[in-house]
C-alpha cells in the first residue's frame, strides 16, 4: 500500500474530509455538448465568502483541494482565491479548459505552487474538439496553453471524455499527450444535465465500443487482469463502502451547497447558513451516505460484481436510490467482464439497458434557496 493510499484510508476511517472539490463558478466560455451544468450565475459566493470557506476547510483538515467549474478563469478573482488557498497550505489542483491561459497565467500558476492542472481535450482533430466545445479555435488555444504550462515545468493531465462523437479519437489524444509531455486520462462517463434533461446521455458510447475500450491495453494496462470475471464476494467486500464520497471527500458548489460528491446531487447543507464542520459532522444526509455498506445495497449486495464494480452511489441516487444500482456502472461491469450483473438478471436482460431509455425522475444539483 502506498503512503498516499495509507493516508487516504486513515482519513476515511477517521471521517476527516481530506479532499474537497470546489466549483468556483458554473460560468463557462465553452458550451460543450455533453456538459451537465447551467452556466448562468445564480449568486456565486463572493471572494470573501470563498476565503472564509477555505479557512473552515483548513480547520476541518482538508489537504487536497480541486478548483473547478464551469471555467475557473471566468472568475476575475481566481488567482486571489488560489493564492489564499496556498497560503493556507492546501495542495491545489485546477481543472480548466485552459483557453484563457497564456504565458503570464502559466507563470502565475507555477509561482503559486499549484500541484496539477487537468485540462479537457476531446480530440486530436481541431474540428472535432471545437465542434464539442462549440468555441472556435478552442483546440488551438488549449494546446498552446498546455505548452505554456509545460514550459513552466508544471504537471498537466489531459482528460479525454469519451462519447459517441469522439469515440475513435482516444489514441490520437493519447499520442498528443505524449508529444506534449503530459499525463492522459480517459473517462467514458456522461452525466445527466442539472435540469434533469437526460438527452445528453445519448452521447454515451455504445456498450460494444466500451468493450473495445476495456480491451485496449494502452488504456487499461493489464487487460487480462482488468477484464477478469469477478471473484466471489468476500465478507470484507460486503462490509465495504462504495467510495470516499461523504467519508473523506465532498463537493462544494459555487453557491455554497455541500454535497457528498460532484456526481452525487444530494443536498446536505449550505455553507452560507451553517459552518462546514456542522454540515460534515451532523448533516443527516451525510450520515446516511456514510452508513451504507455493500451488504445494504438493494440489488447489488447479491451481485457477483459487488467486490469489483465501480458502482457510483451518486449516479445510483440520480436513478432513484442511493442504495440501488447505477446502470452506467452495471454496463461497465458487464462489458468489462462479459458477466451479467444482478441488476440485469433481475430485469431479464441479456445486455444492459442504456441510461438514455431510463425514464426515472432525477434529483439534480440546484442552488438551495437562501433566505434573504
Amino acid at each position, binding site marked *: 500500500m502506498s*503512503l*498516499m493510499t495509507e*493516508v487516504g484510508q*486513515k*482519513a476515511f476511517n*477517521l471521517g*476527516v474530509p*481530506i479532499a474537497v472539490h470546489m466549483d468556483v463558478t458554473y460560468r463557462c466560455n465553452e458550451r460543450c455538448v455533453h456538459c451537465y451544468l447551467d452556466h448562468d450565475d445564480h449568486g456565486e459566493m463572493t471572494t470573501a465568502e470563498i476565503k472564509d470557506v477555505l479557512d473552515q476547510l*483548513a480547520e476541518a*483538515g*482538508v*489537504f487536497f483541494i480541486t478548483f473547478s467549474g464551469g471555467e475557473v478563469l471566468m472568475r476575475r478573482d481566481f488567482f486571489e482565491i488560489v*493564492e489564499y488557498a*496556498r*497560503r493556507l*497550505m*492546501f*495542495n*491545489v489542483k485546477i481543472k480548466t479548459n485552459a483557453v484563457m491561459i497564456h504565458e503570464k497565467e502559466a507563470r502565475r500558476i507555477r*509561482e*503559486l*505552487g*499549484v*500541484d496539477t492542472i487537468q485540462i479537457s481535450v476531446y480530440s486530436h482533430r481541431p474540428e472535432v474538439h471545437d465542434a464539442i466545445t462549440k468555441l472556435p479555435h478552442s483546440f488551438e488555444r488549449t494546446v498552446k496553453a498546455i505548452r505554456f504550462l509545460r514550459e513552466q*515545468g508544471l*504537471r498537466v493531465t489531459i482528460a479525454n471524455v469519451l462519447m459517441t462523437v469522439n469515440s475513435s479519437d482516444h489514441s490520437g489524444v493519447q499520442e498528443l499527450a505524449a508529444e506534449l509531455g503530459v499525463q492522459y486520462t480517459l473517462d467514458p462517463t456522461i452525466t445527466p444535465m442539472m435540469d434533469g434533461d437526460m438527452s445528453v446521455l445519448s452521447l454515451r458510447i455504445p456498450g460494444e465500443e466500451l468493450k473495445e475500450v476495456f480491451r485496449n491495453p494502452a488504456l487499461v494496462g493489464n487487460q487480462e487482469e482488468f477484464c477478469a470475471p469477478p471473484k466471489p464476494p468476500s465478507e470484507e467486500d460486503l462490509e465495504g463502502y462504495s467510495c470516499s464520497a461523504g467519508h473523506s471527500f465532498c463537493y462544494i458548489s459555487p453557491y455554497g451547497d455541500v454535497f457528498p460528491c460532484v456526481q452525487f446531487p444530494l443536498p446536505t447543507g449550505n455553507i452560507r447558513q451553517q459552518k462546514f464542520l456542522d454540515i460534515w459532522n451532523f448533516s443527516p444526509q451525510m450520515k446516511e451516505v456514510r452508513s451504507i455498506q455493500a451488504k445494504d445495497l438493494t440489488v447489488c449486495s447479491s451481485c457477483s460484481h459487488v467486490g469489483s464494480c465501480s458502482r457510483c452511489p451518486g449516479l445510483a441516487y440520480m436513478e432513484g436510490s442511493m442504495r440501488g444500482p447505477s446502470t452506467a456502472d452495471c454496463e461497465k461491469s458487464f462489458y468489462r467482464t462479459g458477466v451479467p450483473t444482478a441488476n440485469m438478471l433481475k430485469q431479464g436482460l441479456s445486455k444492459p439497458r442504456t441510461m438514455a431509455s431510463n425514464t426515472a425522475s432525477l434529483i439534480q444539483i440546484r442552488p438551495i434557496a437562501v433566505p434573504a
Partner: protein
Amino acid sequence: MPETCIYIARSSAIAARALAGEMMVMNSADSTFFTLNEVATTIFQAADGRTPLRDIVRDQVCEQFDVDPEQAQADAEQFVAELSGHGILLVSSQPLAPETPR
C-alpha cells in the same frame, strides 16, 4: 569554536496539513509526499525562519517529549537535512523570512 546556528523555514512550494497528530507534507515541485511523526511535526510547525533549531529542540521537542537533548539535537539536524534535500525546508545560518506563495 562557537556553535553554528541553524535557522529553518518552510518552503512556499509545499502543501501541509495535520492528520491525527501527524503532518502530511507534499512538495508541489515533484509531488513527493511525506508524513511526519509527532516530533518531526513539532519541528516543522516551529520552522518560522527566526527561531534557531537548537532553541526549537530545547524549548519544544525536549519540553513535549521525553528525549535526550543531545540525541534530539542530532536527530533534528538529520531530519532537517533530509527535508531540506527534498525542498521542504529552507536552511540557513542567518534568519530567514518565512516563504509564502506570492
